[in-house]
């Protein structure tokens, strides 16, 4: 199909050969699972189990709380060892509420997990509800609750469902393998989602560096005439939702808007697979495919991992390290997060665990910016990174915002090409975080001010009432004394 040009972007070495030919293997069940109650964007789930309780595979561990949230389920059968705090799958290394589960080795499914005969007979709302109940979130790393996105149908005229199989991050091959090995299931999930969205067009977009996935998916897609396969040029960040939609439709998503504004909803291929599992077999999201790669890993693999397995369990299965890694990354090297330790658990959004050598990361001491404009050329958002960085460094965050800081998607293309090796993304992250904190502080200030004003208004009203009562009493007393009405005087 006809594709459109997107601005900027870079061509990093993809390093996909490390793991691309490794078929998906099941990670042997670890001795303990640490299932965090927050694995998604939104409110954390509320614990639904107690210490000591026995659970079956697929039972609820945490209940969804609020409009944007997602439940979590038991990845296997076993006993709840406790609901406590455990280091999160996050660069900060902070602990969050986590259910610790000791698998009993039976891997026994819950009675409540039942297959559904025909998902296409269900109403769209019903599908969204089941997707929500299965705890499915965006599995490309964004972890936004998928049901919320399926319900966009109620607010937007959605005509196109795009399946994001770009997998433009180097090293990662989990979506590639899933599309190769489970093409029928992925396509089935896609069709169910299209049904839920009422979309009349479906585009499955896969980058040219995955010819086998393209072939498998186009074969599987033959069941539905609405589906078209888009062969994307290999370029980072092709998988960025808004840029992908632009490449496919030629339209830019309005700033600060959603792709739904132009009638398109994007879901990841792995999410489609999870939807298939949930709407055919009633299985909640309890495992995912993770790429373990990087030159420091002895045997790079693609693993199907129960949520809550520790990163260490994956690394052990892959033969540990060849050499001491210089960085342990969750996700791809471009937008991934450094992991504080190998203790942290795998969560719904973990698509990769990379152990990278010093040579691969190639971090050098920063030099001054030479205004070479490489970053301007690379930025897919049309920003001028060097100026935003200069403003951020001099403390002029408003200036950086004025230059479009909030339109920056944090893709890292600019920092990737910068010959001065400036940590541009780090500056932008700092500035965004700081602006958010200022926004919160401002809001808090306004809230306090509002409360204070309300209070003084209340006090004023009470005083006023008291004064009036006093005046009334005086008037009454005067009226009694003289029988002459004085009200007209006091009122003037």
């Amino acid at each position, binding site marked *: 199909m006809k594709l459109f040009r997107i601005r900027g972007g870079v061509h*990093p070495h993809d390093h996909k050969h490390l793991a691309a030919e490794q078929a998906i293997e099941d990670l042997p069940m670890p001795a303990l699972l640490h299932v965090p109650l927050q694995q998604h964007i939104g409110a954390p789930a509320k614990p639904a189990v107690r210490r000591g309780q026995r659970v079956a595979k697929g039972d609820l561990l945490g209940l969804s709380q609020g409009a944007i949230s997602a439940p979590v389920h038991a990845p296997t059968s076993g006993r709840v060892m406790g609901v406590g705090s455990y280091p999160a799958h996050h660069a900060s290394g902070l602990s969050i509420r986590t259910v610790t589960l000791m698998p009993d080795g039976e891997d026994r499914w819950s009675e409540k997990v039942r297959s559904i005969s025909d998902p296409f007979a269900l109403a769209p709302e019903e599908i969204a509800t089941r997707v929500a109940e299965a705890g499915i979130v965006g599995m490309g790393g964004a972890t936004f609750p998928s049901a919320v996105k399926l319900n966009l149908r109620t607010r937007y005229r959605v005509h196109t469902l795009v399946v994001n199989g770009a997998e433009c991050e180097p090293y990662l091959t989990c979506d590639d393998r899933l599309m190769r090995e489970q093409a029928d299931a992925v396509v089935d999930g896609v069709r169910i989602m299209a049904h839920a969205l009422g979309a009349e067009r479906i585009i499955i977009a896969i980058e040219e560096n995955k010819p086998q996935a393209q072939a498998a998916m186009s074969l599987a897609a033959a069941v539905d005439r609405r589906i078209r396969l888009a062969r994307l040029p290999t370029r980072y960040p092709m998988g960025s939702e808004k840029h992908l939609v632009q490449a496919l439709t030629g339209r830019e998503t309005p700033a600060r808007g959603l792709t739904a*504004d132009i009638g398109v909803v994007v879901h990841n291929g792995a999410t489609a697979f999870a939807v298939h599992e949930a709407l055919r077999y009633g299985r909640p999201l309890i495992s995912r495919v993770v790429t373990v790669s990087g030159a420091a890993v002895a045997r790079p693999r693609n693993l199907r991992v129960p949520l809550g397995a520790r990163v260490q369990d994956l690394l052990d299965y892959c033969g540990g390290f060849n050499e001491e890694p210089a960085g342990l990354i969750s996700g791809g090297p471009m937008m991934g997060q450094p992991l504080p330790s190998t203790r942290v658990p795998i969560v719904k959004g973990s698509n990769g665990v990379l152990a990278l050598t010093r040579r691969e990361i190639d971090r050098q001491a*920063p030099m*001054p910016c030479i205004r070479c404009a490489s970053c301007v050329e690379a930025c897919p958002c*049309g920003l001028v990174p060097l100026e935003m960085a200069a403003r951020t460094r001099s403390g002029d965050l408003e200036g950086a915002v004025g230059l479009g800081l909030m339109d920056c998607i944090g893709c*890292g293309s600019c920092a990737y090409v910068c010959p*001065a090796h400036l940590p541009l993304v780090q500056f932008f992250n700092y500035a965004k975080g700081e602006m958010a904190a200022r926004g919160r502080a401002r809001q808090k200030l306004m809230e306090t001010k509002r409360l204070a004003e309300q209070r003084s208004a209340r006090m004023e009203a009470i005083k006023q009432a008291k004064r009036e009562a006093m005046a009334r009493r005086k008037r009454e007393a005067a009226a009694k004394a003289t029988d002459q009405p004085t009200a007209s005087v006091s009122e003037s």
Partner: protein
Amino acid sequence: MQIETPATSAGPFAHAPTSIQRTMVLVMLALLPATVFGFWQFGWPAIFLFLTTLGTAVAAEWVCLRIAGKPQRRYLLDGSAVVAGWLLALSLPPWAPWWIGAIGALIAIVVAKQVFGGLGQNIFNPAMVARVALLISFPLEMTSYVRPLPIFSPEAPGFWQGISISLGQGGFDAVTGATLLSHVRTELSQGGTLSDILPGMAHLFSGAIGTIAGSMGETSALLILLGGGFLLLKRVISWHIPVALVGSLALIATLMNLYDADRYAGAPYHLVSGATLLVAFFIATDPVTSPVSKSGQILFGAGCGILVYVIRTWAGYPEGVGFAILLMNACTPTIDHYLRPRVYGRDRRGTPIEYADNAEMRK
């Protein structure tokens, strides 16, 4: 408030094989053919001038880095001082005495670069600042050109004679030669017409291969073009500035030539003579002092081209590239301010794009 780079860091955890050092080394490689040709053409005095200029540039950079308390090794190895000195040396009359090169290098490194804050901070191209300052202060030395005397030819000065020429002691009868630009200018001002001054096309040919009087790196248009092509290929520079510069210069020259062919030379003359190509590919494209957006670069290049023509034709100096570059350098911050790329999802004015068929259902 300043933020430093904290230890735990954000991505990306991969990097393109780029560095400032690599960029500078590529520029040096690109300059090499024209430089070696210049050595061959102008012999020992040119080699001494080149070495003095580079040596002074590096020494000055080192002293400035020491004073500024910056890591000297890392910053010296980035190669920017060498490139600045190199470009300056290429734009000097090849037999100029050594102190011209030394003073020029001091001006370039200390005044034009380090005083502004060092690498990346200067507004004006250091080599051009030095060239213009020298031209104003030492007009005699800066306009004494010699005809090329290939280094091993019998008339060329030997090693020792070369040294004495560099030291500014006479004793060697050089065949002085006016550069094409100043020759034409002088003759024109005396009422000559171009058809008398430039008979035939021979000058174009010698300008292209570089067998005429001129600065060391300016004379051979072909070798400069070769280096420029190499930089384009390696993506060290983009085509926007050179093409806009050469294009606008050629356009205005052609128009003026059509208007009066006896007073205004055509495009080929302007392109091969003087420093046009050296400036188009190596000086106007200096990243530090040129705009960062593509549209800005085109405007900048076109501005340079027009100014070069205007200064060459109507102002007091036969060669206008130095002034043209400095004037446009001064415009760079303004150009950068007004000509930015369009931000994704917004129109040129920065408001979010609106579609007539927005899919949101308004209630």
